[in-house]
């Protein structure tokens, strides 16, 4: 891959960063995200980054999407990113199990992912997307997609997900 002016990395708690930086060697690199972040948070920081930096066709954007079973709360003027709900946490523990359903979280997250992917397609940026647990998406395709809107949106997203560790070799 050549002519990488700016690289935007959106990450939850992934450890592939150094490998990617070494392979791309961008002139500028912007890293966003934090440990335990869910996809709502990643989508949020993407929006802020896009408003500030006006992501364009000259840029490379790499999104390490997180697991579906995460919630991000902005309370007391700060973010609380507690990671997977089954690992506990102050706010995770307040979630009622009737509401904290993987079908809900998937519907919420695929909408965030769709917004980011469609916009990056539009501006012509080179963009790559991986999920923390890719099998979570493929498995859900069969088990949890139970309505038409989930199906139509997730079909698009599936075409965009890739194995990011290959970036730099197959472009």
């Amino acid at each position: 891959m050549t002519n990488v002016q700016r690289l935007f990395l959106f990450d939850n708690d992934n450890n592939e960063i150094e490998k990617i930086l070494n392979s791309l060697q961008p002139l500028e690199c912007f890293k966003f995200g934090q440990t335990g972040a869910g996809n709502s948070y990643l989508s949020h920081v993407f929006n802020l980054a896009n408003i500030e930096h006006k992501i364009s066709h000259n840029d490379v954007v790499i999104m390490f999407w997180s697991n579906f079973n995460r919630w991000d709360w902005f309370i007391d003027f700060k973010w609380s990113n507690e990671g997977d709900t089954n690992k506990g946490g102050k706010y995770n523990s307040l979630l009622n199990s009737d509401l904290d359903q993987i079908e809900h979280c998937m519907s919420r997250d695929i909408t965030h992912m769709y917004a980011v992917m469609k916009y990056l397609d539009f501006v012509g940026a080179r963009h790559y997307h991986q999920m923390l647990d890719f099998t979570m998406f493929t498995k859900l395709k069969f088990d949890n997609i139970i309505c038409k809107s989930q199906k139509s949106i997730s079909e698009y997203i599936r075409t965009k997900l890739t194995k990011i560790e290959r970036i730099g070799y197959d472009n």
Partner: protein
Amino acid sequence: MITRPVKRLFAFGCSYTRYAWPMWPEVIKLEFGDQIEYYNFGHSGAGNEYIRHQLFHANQEFSFDQDDLVIVCWSSVFRSDWFIKSHRGWFTEGNILHPGTCNEKLAPDLLNINHYIIRDASIMTGGSKFLETLTSQTHQICMLDNFFPGEKDHQFFETEILDHPECKPMIDYLNTKLKPSFWEMGYDQDYNENKLIILPPEDRDTHPMPIDSMKYLSKVFDYEFSPDTIKGVEEWESKLWNIMINRPSDSGIVLQEYIETKFPEFSQPF
């Protein structure tokens, strides 16, 4: 409202978009008549998460193009939409403080308005950026002004959030994209309620009447509707009044449900 002819209208929003009687999408459909196909994805109680989900779903299903008019009417930020497996779809229960199967299961510590403002500023920014990618004619209107205190239910509102660096850039961006809301353009739920004072309290519905919706569109788009449209909307309004005034007091159901059940052709005139 349009700068070139359109073939399809896609409308998204909450009950201000689709309700028991004709709302703003029906007024637009009436204006353009058979020239346009019309798809109304509005849903009572919907929050912005549901609205954006439907917008993206519709794009996947219908592939918006240059011949389309796509209008999103954003809802209140203080709502949550829940996709519930056993229901096989979404619960849209309106204001998060109001009773509801899902709303009542949210712990008090998770009802912080700042969270919902940030969440929806992000959702709306993503939705708005998506609309920028379309070749269609697009507009974003609003039920109310989400980012200023004033709504009765915003008792937790802390104005500092609007200047917070996690929020301000998105609100500044959205302010360049969103048309003034129904409320900002003079539509007043309390006024509407007063207008309906002759009805029993349970029937004093606060949704815009057909003429309210037409007036809003005229103001916000600086658009003059045709005499035929004005006449048609006035006929809807007159019919709605007749239904309201003559509604039996012992129906046992709320006004919205009564009209949708007894007068389905009026609820969905196209």
